[in-house]
C-alpha cells in the first residue's frame, strides 16, 4: 500500500502527532498525579509526625512486636501504641465507644470482629487512606485488584490470601504418606476409626476457621462434620501443643486441625502436614483465615493511621508481615500482594501458580457455633475411658 494513498501521508502524520500529543498529555498528567500523590504523601507524613502516635488494636497479624518494630524503624517519629488480643477486643471497643472514647486508629484481625464493627457502624473507608503508588497500584495484588470483605466494598480490606489448608497432619514414622486421601470424605473411611486426633482450637469458644469453611463448603458441609465427630472415635485435645505432641508420640497417626506442625517438624518431631493441593475440596480463600485491615471512624490520629496503613500494605510492610507470621508465629500466611517473595511462606500457605481459588464471602460463624461445639462436646464425652 502506497504511503500516499489510504491512511498514508498527512493522515498518518496527524494520527502520529495526535498519539504523541496524547502520550504527552498522559505523561504530564501522570507526572502531575504522581507529583500530587507525592505531595499529598509528604503532607500526610508531616501531619502524622505532628500527631506523633498511632493506636492499633488487633491480633498478632498487626501488633506483633517485630512488625511494629519494623514500622518504628522506618518512621521513628510516630509512636505505635498497640492493644493486642482476640475476640475480646471488640468488647473493649464497644465499651470505649459507648463512653465516647474514640481511641482506635486501625484494627486488624480475622474478618468476624471487623464485621461486627461494620454492623455497629464503627468503620471508616480504608480507600482514602491509601496513597503510596505501590499500594494503590492494583496490578501488584492478587487477581489485579484490591479485595474488600464488606458489602459496600470499602471498609474491610483483605490483605491476606492464604488458601484454605487441608488441616491434616500425620506422624511420619507411622505413616509414610497419605496416598488415597484425595477428599475430606476419605478420612471417614472405617480404617481411620479410632486413629484420628483432633485439635479443637478456636480462641476460647469461637469456631475454628477451617471448620467454618468445611461447614459452608457445599461439597463437605455439616453432614461431613457430623459423621467425623460421631463415627470416627476422635481423640480430642484443646491444647495446641498437647495435640501436636500426641501426634508426634504416636497416640494417633493422623491429626485433623493440629497446629504448629511445621514448627514441630523443624524441631525434629516426626510430623508432617498434608498439602492442601491433594484435597479437592480444600483451597478457598478470603474467609475467616484471612486477616483484614479496618480504619475506625473518629480515629484520633488519621494521618498517622494513613502512614501506618500505607507502610503495612507496602512491599516492605507485607514482606515483614509475611515473614513474621510464617517464620515466627509459624502460621501459614500469604499476602495478597503478588510482587513480594513467597519463599518464607509455609507449605500450607502457598498458592499454586495458575490455580483458581474460589473467593469466599463472609462466613457467619453464629449458626455454626452451637452445632460445632455440641459435636465437640459429645465427641469428647464419648472418648471417656
Amino acid at each position: 500500500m502506497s504511503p500516499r494513498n489510504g491512511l498514508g501521508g498527512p493522515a498518518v502524520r496527524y494520527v502520529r502527532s495526535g498519539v504523541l500529543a496524547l502520550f504527552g498529555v498522559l505523561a504530564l498528567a501522570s507526572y502531575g498525579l504522581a507529583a500530587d500523590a507525592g505531595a499529598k504523601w509528604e503532607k500526610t507524613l508531616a501531619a502524622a509526625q505532628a500527631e506523633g502516635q498511632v493506636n492499633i488494636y488487633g491480633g498478632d497479624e498487626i501488633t506483633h512486636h517485630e512488625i511494629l518494630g519494623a514500622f518504628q524503624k522506618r518512621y521513628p517519629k510516630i509512636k505505635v501504641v498497640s492493644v493486642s488480643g482476640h475476640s475480646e477486643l471488640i468488647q473493649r471497643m464497644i465499651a470505649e465507644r459507648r463512653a465516647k472514647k474514640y481511641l482506635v486508629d486501625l484494627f486488624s484481625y480475622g474478618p468476624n470482629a471487623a464485621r461486627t464493627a461494620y454492623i455497629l457502624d464503627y468503620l471508616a473507608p480504608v480507600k482514602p487512606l491509601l496513597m503510596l503508588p505501590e499500594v494503590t497500584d492494583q496490578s501488584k495484588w492478587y487477581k489485579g485488584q484490591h479485595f474488600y470483605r464488606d458489602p459496600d466494598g470499602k471498609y474491610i480490606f483483605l490483605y491476606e490470601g492464604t488458601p484454605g489448608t487441608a488441616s491434616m497432619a500425620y506422624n511420619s514414622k507411622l505413616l509414610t504418606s497419605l496416598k488415597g486421601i484425595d477428599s475430606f470424605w476419605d478420612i471417614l473411611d472405617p480404617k481411620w476409626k479410632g486413629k484420628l486426633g483432633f485439635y479443637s482450637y478456636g480462641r476460647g469458644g469461637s469456631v475454628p476457621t477451617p471448620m467454618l469453611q468445611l461447614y459452608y463448603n457445599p461439597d463437605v458441609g455439616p453432614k461431613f462434620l457430623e459423621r467425623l465427630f460421631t463415627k470416627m472415635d476422635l481423640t480430642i485435645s484443646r491444647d495446641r501443643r498437647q495435640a501436636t505432641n500426641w501426634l508426634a508420640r504416636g497416640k494417633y497417626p493422623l491429626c485433623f486441625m493440629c497446629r504448629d506442625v511445621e514448627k514441630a517438624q523443624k524441631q525434629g518431631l516426626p510430623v508432617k502436614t498434608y498439602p492442601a493441593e491433594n484435597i479437592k475440596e480444600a483451597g478457598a480463600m478470603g474467609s475467616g483465615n484471612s486477616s483484614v485491615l479496618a480504619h475506625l471512624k473518629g480515629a484520633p490520629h488519621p494521618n498517622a493511621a494513613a502512614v501506618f496503613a500505607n507502610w503495612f500494605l507496602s512491599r516492605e510492610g507485607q514482606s515483614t508481615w509475611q515473614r513474621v507470621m510464617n517464620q515466627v508465629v509459624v502460621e501459614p500466611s500469604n499476602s495478597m500482594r503478588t510482587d513480594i517473595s513467597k519463599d518464607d511462606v509455609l507449605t500450607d500457605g502457598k498458592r499454586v501458580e495458575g490455580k483458581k481459588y474460589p473467593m469466599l464471602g463472609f462466613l457467619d460463624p453464629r449458626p455454626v457455633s452451637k452445632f460445632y461445639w455440641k459435636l465437640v462436646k459429645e465427641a469428647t464425652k464419648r472418648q471417656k475411658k
Partner: protein
Amino acid sequence: MPQPDSPAAPAAPRARITALNWGLYLMIVLIGFMGFYILYPLALILINSFNVATIGEPTRWGFGAWTEAFTEYGAGEALWNTIHLTVVRQAIVFPLGVFLAWVLSRTNIPFARGFEFLFWISFMLPSVASTYGWMLLLDPDYGLVNTWFDNLLGVMPFDIYSFWGIVWVHTVAGLDTKVMLLTPAFRRMDAAMEEASLLCGAGTLRTMFRVTLPVMTPILVVVLLLSLVRLFESFETELLLGTPWGFFVYSTMIVDLARQDPPLTNQAAALGSIILVFLAVFIPLQRKLIGARQFTTVTSHFKAKLIDMGPWKYLAAAGIGAICFLAVGVPILSALGGSLMVRFGFFDLPQTWTLEYWRVALNDPRLMLALQNTLIIAVVSAVVGPILFSLIAYIIVRTRLPGRSVLDSICWLPSAVPGVLAGLGLLWMFLGTPFFRPLYGTLFLLIIASMMGGITLATQVLKANFIQLGKELEEASLTSGAGFWGTYFRIVLPLMGQTMALIAVLKFLFAARTASSVILLATSETRTLALLALDQIAGGYREPASITVLFIVLLTTGVALVARSFGLKVGIQGA
C-alpha cells in the same frame, strides 16, 4: 476516731459520741469505696446477664441468656463437676495442710523455716507449669514415671488424664496456701494451753485435736472457706487434664462463652451471676461459724514453745521434704525444661537442649518496660494493700460499728468471680465513671484493678489473726492515751508483723501475675510481665513466655525473701 470494742476506758458521753461519729464516717467511706470498687462491676455483670440483645443490638431485657446458658451449654453438669472436684480435693488437701502447718510451727522438726519458705515458693509458681510437669511424668502412654514402672514391672499404673489425676495435681499444688496461711497463725498460739493439756496427761496428738485445733478455729474456717470459694477459679489444670476425657468445669465454660466470636457476654454473665447466688449463702455461713466464740491465743502473757517429736522429727522432715520437692521441684524443672529444651518433654530429638529461647526472651524489647510496669503496680499493691485491708479487717473484728457485716461481705466477693468476667466488669466501671474515664489507658487504672487481686485472702487472713490477738495490749495503749491511730500503727501492726509481711508478699504476687482482670485495660505502654507472657504465647513464643513467667517467679521470690526476713524481725517470734 473509732474506738476498739473496749470496756477499759470509760469515756465522757460527748467524747463517745464524737468517736462514734468518726467511726461512722470512716465506715461510710470504706463501704462506699469498697462497694463502688467491688459491687459496681459485679452489678454491671448481673444486669448484663438479663440483656438478651446480641452484640451491637439495642438492649432488650429477658431471661434468654440464663436459659440458654443452662440448657444449651451444659452448665449444670459443669457446676456439678466443679463441686465434686472441690469437695474431694479439699477433703484431702485441707487436713493434710493443717497437719503440715502444725508440724512446721508447733514441733521441733528440723529445717521448719526452710520448708515453710519452700511452700511460699510453691505458691508463687504458675499452676500451668505444675500441670505440664505432671503430664510429662504421668502420661498414661509416655509419662517418664510410667515408663520406669513399665521397664521395672511391666505395668504403667498412672493416668494423669483422669479425675484422680486432676485431684493429684491440685493436691500437690494446693498445700502451699494452707501452709502459708496456717503456719504463722499456729506459731502465734500461746503454748501455755498445750502445756496444760500435756500436764493433764493428754498425748501430743490428743493435744493437737482437743486444744490446738479448736483454738485455731477462726483461721481454719477462713482457710477452708477461702479454698472453697475459689472453686470457680481453677482453669488450666482442668482444661489440660479434663478435656481429653470430657470433663468440663464451670470456669472453662465461662471463659469459652466470653471468648466466642462474637462474644456471648450475656450468657457468660449469667453463669457468673450464679456465683453471686452461691456467695449469698456462703458469706453468712462463715460469719456464723467464726463469729460467736472467743479465740484469743496471743495475749501479753504469750509464751512460745515447741513440742519435742523425738526421733519422729527426722521422719517428718523427710516426708515434708519429699512433698516440697513435688510441689516446687516439678513446676520449676518443668518451667526450666520448657525454656532450655528444644521441645519440652522430648528427649530423643537430634538436638535436645538450646539457649536460643533465652536469647530471644532477653532481647525482647518489651521486657524492660513490662518489668518496670510490673514493679510499679506490684510495689504499690504491696504497700497500700496490707495497710488498707488490715484497717478493714481491724474495724470488722475490733469495733462494733454498724455496717461491719456489709463490709465483710463485700470483701468476700472478688475471690469467687472468674478473672475474665471481673476484667469486663472493671472495664465497664472505669469507662462508665467520669472520674476514671480520663485515666483510661494509664497505669493508674491497672494499679487500682490489680489491688482487687487477693482482697478476700488478705482481709480474711488478717481478720483471723486479729481474732487471735488479745485486746489487753491495745487497751493498755488506749489507756495510756495513744488514741486509735497511734494504737493501730504502734501496737497492732508491729504485733502482726509476720502476717503483714505475708499479705504484702501476697499482694505483690497477685499484682505481678494478674492478667485476666487487667487485660482489657492495658496497652503496649502499660503491659505487665503477665500480659507480656500472654502476648508471647499468642505470638508463637511459647518458650520465651515460660522465661517471662520465670521472671515473675524470681521477682516475687526476691520480694518474699526480703519480706520474710523483715517479718521475722518484727511481730511475734516463735521459739
